[in-house]
């Protein structure tokens, strides 16, 4: 069985963004649960944070294939 160590490394590095995205959405859910009418204000902010954290995981994915 063959494989690339890059992908294993990527799997490990994806833990960081995974935790970050979990924390972002936990905060978003908390915020909406406490104040449901703030949903429309919080939604773009939550997705912005999600996008920024996710970018790191995606750089890792690209590098896993490129290097």
């Amino acid at each position, binding site marked *: 069985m063959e494989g690339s160590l890059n992908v294993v490394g990527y799997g490990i590095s994806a833990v960081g963004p995974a935790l970050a995205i979990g924390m972002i959405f936990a905060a978003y859910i908390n915020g909406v649960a406490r104040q449901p009418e703030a949903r*429309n204000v919080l939604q*773009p902010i939550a*997705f*912005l944070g*999600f*996008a*920024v954290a*996710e*970018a790191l995981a*995606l*750089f890792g*994915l*690209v590098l896993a*294939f490129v290097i």
Partner: protein
Amino acid sequence: MRKFAFAESGEGFVPPSTADFNLPPVFGDNAFTTKPILLSLLSVVLISVFFILASRKALVVPNKLQFAGESVYAFVRNGLGKDIIGHEFMRYVPFLFTLFTFIITNNIFGIVPFLQFPTMSRVSFAYVLAIFSVAGFHYVGIKKHGIVKYLSGIAFMPGVPKAVYVLLTPIEIATFFLVRPLTLSLRLFANMFAGHLLLMVFILGGEHMLSGSIGIKLIAPIAFAFGIGMTFFEFMVQCLQAYIFTLLTALFIAGALADEH
């Protein structure tokens, strides 16, 4: 075609790789008739036909088609334009709306039967969209503030101690001209690429299991079930990525318009 190669040679499973994204030309022998290019042209036709039909006979009480078209438009106009850019948002709605519909249609091609290839899993398409987005918000900023004021606003953020500029100026310049286009394009590309790869792993893997012994054949339906489940997950990701790309473009435009610059 890779997926038939292992069946003929009788060798082990060949996992899908980046080579599966380099599709040969559909017809002819040039670089311009490949599947992603034809799909992007198809998406332009589909979007045009849909919105022309939806808006041709606008009624006060909308019919189903008009309602569908108007809800997409209202989503972009209110959720992405009005809430984020603020006043004067109507000037940027056509751009945002074009981006959103183009990206979402091309993404959803990834799970449409027989098409089944997300255009944005070829990185060049994502690069071009990111270039449009970044050139767009720089243009908006320069037009609003003038080139000197806009660029000095980027390089020298007001309200910061002078000594910090040594660190902050390179970071800000890199953010605006390098990191933003790169993250914007790579996010879209990598999501579509990884999603397509994931679907190929489950479905081609299930297909390969069917050619194994009886015990393995019985497990194959599980792989196909996961493939179907992942297809729905992909649908969610595809819509989300189109939303995020447009959201970030709207945020960049709002940032370029802000008076602090």
